[in-house]
């Protein structure tokens, strides 16, 4: 039985300040709704009211969009409110993940190089899925609004480790 309070730094505040380094900026990205939908891709998109889902290295645009996680799964960001469970008519399973994933934004000319320290991402190598591992941590990575702006989602319990890793790389 140990008290490891000192070993594990207390989590940062949710309204934490951006981390700014040379040619890179890291900020926490509050999102009002995240919904996981599993089922036939077209049915998932229709239910989420999205025309398409972004994989890698697509650029998601706007405040409401969908990210493709795998052949039969998308994450709808800021999409419509949907009831959790099985949607019989469309054959889609729905779960709210608004609090389940935390997201941050990494932007700047150096952002891609920072990501490439921990994952094998290449703009020239597209992938239908935005799922990646960053320094062994499971994450969702996609571009948002701009060529050099990346949004990274992770399970909320792993936000602190993702943030710490990225922050150290940003200020390097």
């Amino acid at each position, binding site marked *: 039985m140990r008290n490891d309070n000192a070993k594990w730094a207390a989590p940062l505040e949710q309204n934490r300040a951006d981390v700014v380094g040379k040619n890179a900026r890291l900020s926490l990205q509050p999102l009002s709704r995240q919904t996981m939908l599993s089922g*036939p891709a077209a049915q998932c998109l229709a239910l989420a009211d999205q025309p398409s889902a972004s994989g890698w290295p697509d650029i998601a645009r706007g405040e409401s969009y969908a990210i493709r996680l795998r052949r039969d799964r998308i994450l709808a960001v800021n999409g419509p409110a949907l009831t959790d*469970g099985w949607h019989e008519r469309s054959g889609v399973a729905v779960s709210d993940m*608004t609090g389940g994933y935390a997201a941050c934004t990494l932007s700047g000319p150096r952002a891609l190089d920072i990501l490439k*320290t*921990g994952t094998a991402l290449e703009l020239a190598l597209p992938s239908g899925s935005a799922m990646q591992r960053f320094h062994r941590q499971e994450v969702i990575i996609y571009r948002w609004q701009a060529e050099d702006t990346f949004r990274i989602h992770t399970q909320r319990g792993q936000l602190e480790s993702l943030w710490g890793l990225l922050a150290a790389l940003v200020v390097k």
Partner: protein
Amino acid sequence: MKRVEGLGLIDRRTPLNFSFDGKPYQGFAGDTLASALLANGQRIMGRSFKYHRPRSVWGAWFDDPNAIFDIELNGFHEPNCPAATTYLEEGMQARAVNATPNAHSDIKGLLDKFNRFMPAGFYYKTFMWPNWHLFEGFIRNMAGLGRVENVAKSGYISEQHHATCDVLVIGGGAAGLAAARVAAESGRSVILADDHREFGGGLFRQGGLVEGQTPVDWVTEQLSAVTAAGGLVMPLTTAIGVYDHNLVGLVEAHAFGQAPSLHRIRAEQIIMATGAIDRPVTFANNDRPGIIAVDGALEFLARYGVLVGKNIAILSNNSLATPAAEILRTAGAKVRLLDASTGPFTAHGGKSLNAISQGTERIPCDTILASGGLVPLVHLWRHAGGKLSWRADIAAFVPAKGPVGMQAIGAANGTFDLDVSLSEARGENLPKSTYTLRPIQPDLTAKGRQWIDFQHDVTLKDIELAARENYTSVEHLKRYTTLGMASDQGKTSNMAGLAAMATLQGKSIPETGTTTFRPPFVPVPFEVYRGARRGQYFNPLKRLVLEPELRAAGAAMAEYGGSLRPAWFGSGPHEITREAIMARRAAAIFDASTLGKIEVIGPDAAAFLNFIYYNTMATLKPGFIRYGFMLTERGAVYDDGVVARMGENRFIISCSSSHVDGVVARLEAWRQDGNNPDRVFIHDTTPNWPTVTVTGPKAREILESLDLQIDLAPEAFKHMTWREGRFEGAVARVSRVSFSGDTSFEISVPVATATALWQAALAAGKPLGAGPAGVEALSILRAEKGYLIIGKDTDGDTMPHDLGFSIPRQKKTADFVGDRSLHTENANRADRKQLVGLMAPPGAAALPTGAHLVEVTLGKRRSIGYVTSSYHSPTLGHPIALALIEGGAARMGEDLTVWHMGKQSAAQVTSPCFYDPEGAALHA
């Protein structure tokens, strides 16, 4: 040894001061430590591993196993630096490892006098009695290489980077440069890596012009062409390993004291142009300082302008000896050529050479350059699983059937002529090779010790001993004699060792075999592999949404199953007892957010769960909860948890906290195998639903204060059911399940509402004597009730009927995972270990967890089981324990002997449920 004017790639305008073993020296920018020492006439640079024999360099680059230094510069210390690959920097202080006080006068050199008593394997034979550990410290102190500091180096951090390319060319010699240029100019993305500062490989030492240009000009032109075509050239970069799917680890060296960088390159095509090195010649006293590889001596001359001797004997069996002799003569040396295939030869001298003899002829010399033929560097080929084939004409293994996307060219492919190599690299027709070789093998009758492995002091006699003791397999030979171990990893010793074993057995080298090469190709600091994953980031724990609240309430946070959770609240571990008593008398409030909330959704969800679980889940009604086991295919219990049915097509699995990721993976695997994957889906929503558990006789009162809009009356909200309510406008899923044995409610809410719920529960509980409690108190409560923790109270063989859950095994008709294994002979054994409770005699201390229960028969003890959980129960006022014991269920009331660390005590077998066996508190 001297510098030769006009030769070398060093910058003679930039002198650099350094010291070796305390003596000051001067070299030039571009020197390695080895070349600078040779230029200063310092030949002895180290001591061998076992006998502490004086050693000079054998090779001029990574093929030198002998000169290994501890180096300090500007307060930075780095152990085990190869002198031949460490570039000189101003102010370096180098010391030979494994030498006391220095390499020239090592007092441990006396050990060599006793060499006949220390053959291969003598450790294993000599220090068996009374105990190896009595000798271990002394031997480790005597042997070994550099000293590692206990303090982590501040700022010594390796950068890591991922990249891809069409073509990765490893090796920047003639073949590599030509191949890289062809690839780059064809429009493919190219990375060209070489471990030297200057590209060119063996071009400089070969002398003469390259396609009408000096080597320097030719190399410059090729590099310019590669970069002009968009290629990336990476000097000082070594390919240390080839891994699955053409992943190559490139380690880029930086200035001394700065951690190397790791580049993980995924290449469509790998061109291995790693060159070849000289195979040593096995002859008497062949480890003496001043016996150097032919190509090593030429490298020292061509790159650093160092002539390694004045009176040189070249002992070679191949056609490269004659041009080498001409180059050395031109540089000012007197050179005599000797045919290595005509042996036996003997070197004469101690710390300095004075002659080599063959029969009665004694040839004075101060240096012997040896070559038993060129050996292609096929290590990376083998890393990737490539095969090798034996080429008798060059007496070497060369790449044969290769991994997809990998190609060997140049000397690495056994192509040693420059023009042939260039044609091969460019995909042109190959001219005829001029390289010839006369086979050699060690003379088993020759007098004197003949070295096979310079670094580890393995001699021909050691190989003979291994053969006599039947360690004839190459892999056994390596491990018995330590041949090819340490930093050399067989680069110089592998072929010599194979040749020796082949000769001893009267076989050919290919019949004898070859060892498996593994990454890394050269020694690299552990730091290279670590990168950013350090400290908290090496294996980061999952963090709770409520952690700030928990810390504010005085929680001592600790790791439990991959999550950082509160162990207790307050000033120390003594609070655990207080929390357990509080839970039984009033109520305890836990953060149970880590419990699984895995949703199984779809029209096949019920059938799927019925298959996944040991217990029948198909009959579970919406609104109800059922306890169940997940089994492995072997029938062992993998997880226990509860399943809540949310609706016709939706279930939520609340598995053990530490098993969430594993359970999700198992569910996905089974979903995609044997099920229609469009009719059942798995969503891990665990992090979306923080959970606050309120347990104890006053739990209901606390919940009533929370205004959850649920009828909490016992008859309206029964044990093992769930209800959906509201808390501050948000959904609140409330489950009536218990891990303490008392009335319990688990309230799961969205993340945004969790803090308010926690604070409200604490506020409502405080006037009732309730408060926060940690995992340790919960562990006591559950053990009092006999609730088990999988992995603690079970082992890898525990089946559900060992835990008292037999009905599905007997009556469930539907298929389920592990079913067949529950009906095997092993599953039906009467002596299976079964979960029971244990009571110590009145006044006795708690039994040690892990203590064995023993039976004594004819004076011999035999373990019949062990204690899995043990606590002092504050509720009951005496110790309690759970244990797995052979035939435990049939032993109720039996007195057993407990054995732990040499001490004996007594315990009585009881039911594992010590608290509220009737369940009145649970259902209240």
